[in-house]
């Protein structure tokens, strides 16, 4: 495919002895949309700042087009950044904000006008040239911030939670917009977010991070369908994660029952984590199922119902379009491809149990998130 543009090799970062990034290895291809995904404090913003030149790794190398750029200051890098809170210059109007980088490079006035106009069209903000930036809405500021970065024709655009402060509707629109802009410009986007849905929607490649380490790198489908460990399975979408034993290739045992599956490459009788996505479970009458349980909780979610089903004390989340009343006895069937097997990890047993289920899922409160983001900046 396309060639490699950026590589982080054994990059580690520590502030005052506290490890923020631990041995990150990552390469980013030309014209790729790559997302760094993880909760606040996972090191994703720090990784972005290292690529942008605002932070210098404690150890390891940052390569750009094969050249080591650890010591290259930000103003000499061919990357531009869209900052979390836009960071538009309040004393300049929209036109001058976008023209800022071009004026620094001392381009001809005509060239500047042409490129600023082009960018304003690209982000759908023509006619706003003379507007003061504090008279713009959040979504408009976002567009100007993107235009201000892209007008410099960077090889890579870094975006630090750019949609974090927008409301839900606007966020969805901007997701499509960003994807369109990326494809139209044909440049690399490195995108930081804590929103798994955003990552799945936009990315070519997702890098899932936690506690300063990369947990998994892959295409959105692979990350969702083949999570490497309990952490990834839980962070991306919803998952029921059970203890199981791999009897042999393509045969797993849990709840005292053996199920055929499609995974292989494990030791005989190796203890494993079994992932079952809530939407993959088929509900059947109680007597014809592989397993039989009692519905303890029902939540209407619009497209489907979230129901919590108690199987011998272990509670599962199941998503179904057919209403099941609380107290109903139901059976479930699992097809081999509905079962995903993962090796045991340090995250085993920490996720995937819905015994303390609340209708809010385990979504991290966004308000709390926003505050943590500020701390992460430190």
């Amino acid at each position, binding site marked *: 495919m396309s060639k490699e543009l950026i590589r982080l090799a054994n990059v580690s970062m520590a502030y005052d002895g506290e490890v923020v990034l631990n041995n990150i290895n990552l390469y980013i291809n030309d014209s790729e949309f790559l997302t760094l995904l993880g909760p606040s404090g996972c090191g994703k913003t720090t990784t972005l700042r290292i690529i942008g030149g605002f932070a210098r790794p404690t150890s390891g190398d940052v390569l750009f087009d094969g050249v080591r750029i650890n010591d290259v200051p930000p*103003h000499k890098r061919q990357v531009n950044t869209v900052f979390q*809170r836009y960071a538009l210059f309040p004393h300049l109007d929209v036109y001058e904000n976008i023209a800022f980088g071009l004026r620094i490079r001392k381009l001809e006035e005509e060239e500047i006008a042409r490129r600023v106009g082009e960018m304003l069209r690209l982000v759908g903000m023509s006619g706003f040239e003379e507007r003061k930036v504090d008279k713009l809405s959040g979504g408009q500021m976002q567009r100007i911030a993107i235009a201000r970065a892209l007008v410099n024709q960077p090889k890579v655009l870094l975006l630090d939670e750019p949609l974090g402060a927008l409301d839900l509707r606007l966020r969805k629109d901007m997701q499509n917009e960003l994807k369109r802009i990326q494809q139209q410009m044909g440049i690399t986007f490195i995108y930081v977010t804590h*929103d798994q849905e955003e990552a799945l929607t936009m990315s070519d490649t997702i890098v899932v991070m936690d506690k300063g380490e990369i947990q998994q790198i892959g295409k959105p489908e692979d990350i969702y369908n083949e999570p490497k460990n309990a952490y990834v399975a839980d962070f991306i979408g919803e998952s029921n994660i059970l203890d199981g034993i791999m009897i042999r290739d393509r045969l797993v045992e849990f709840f005292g029952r053996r199920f055929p599956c499609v995974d292989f490459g494990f030791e005989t009788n190796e203890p494993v984590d079994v992932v079952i996505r809530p939407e993959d479970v088929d509900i059947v009458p109680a007597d014809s199922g592989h397993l039989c349980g009692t519905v303890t909780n029902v939540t209407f979610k619009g497209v489907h119902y979230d129901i919590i089903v108690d199987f011998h004390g272990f509670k599962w989340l199941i998503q179904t379009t057919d209403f099941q009343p609380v107290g109903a006895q139901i059976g479930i069937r699992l097809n081999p491809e509905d079962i995903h097997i993962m090796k045991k990890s340090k995250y085993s047993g920490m996720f995937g149990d819905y015994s303390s289920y609340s209708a809010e899922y385990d979504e991290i409160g966004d308000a709390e998130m*926003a505050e943590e983001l500020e701390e992460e900046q430190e």
Partner: protein
Amino acid sequence: MRKASKVFTVLVFCFLYLPMLVLAVASFNRGNDPVVFKGFTLSNYAALFRDSVLLPLLLNSVIVALISSLMATVLGTAATLGIQRMRPGLRRFTMALTNIPLTNPEIVTGVSLALLFAFVGQAMKLKSIMGFWTLLIAHVTFNLPYVILSVQPKLLQMDENLTEAALDLGCTPFRAFWKVTLPEILPGIISGILMSFAMSLDDFVISYFVYGPNFVTLPVEIYNYTKKPLHPKIYALFTLLFLAILVVMTVMNLLQARDSAKQRGSRLNRQRKRANIVSGGN
């Protein structure tokens, strides 16, 4: 209760401004006795502007005030930027050091500066070191905290990403300061200049300890006048000085008022954004 506090407010302002008013009226008095008003005249002002002693001293005061406030502003702004980048502990310590001259009695600052200068003069084997330079250094010294205190809040309010955005768009660190940081903190810098100009112009206590016979400022000279009966032209001078300071302070307050109105606006914006985050969900 309300009424009482209003009455007190009026009384306080009377105490503060009645003397000034008496002075201003006296400056237009035809007679020599300030207690008896003998008719309106501008002759005191005319006499003031013909005075060959006072006017050069006024010029001295303005020169010292101008240079010292400019120097203090440059140094103070640089210091504020530096303080901002210190570790939190060191930053608190430095700010405490900065604030001491503000709370310190002026006379202590004056005496200690005089001692220091005498010491240095001795070391340099000079007969008398006191003069323009000692005055200037002293004024810069006591002006510095005012500048730092007025620039620092501006710098704290500034989105730290702004500087990074400028670097990101190709500015060298120096250029980023010039093109982005400076316009942002300019209101603080201007009020720092105005404040220190005013402080410097009317300083007597510290100046009294560090002036030399070759370079005297107006407040110091006026102090010598108070030992003998005052000529009414001095009243005229006081009135003008008072007006000058009044103008400077009014300009400063207007600047601050405009600025805080702007801030209220952006705070509202931020709150609205926060509300969006909370209601947005994902």
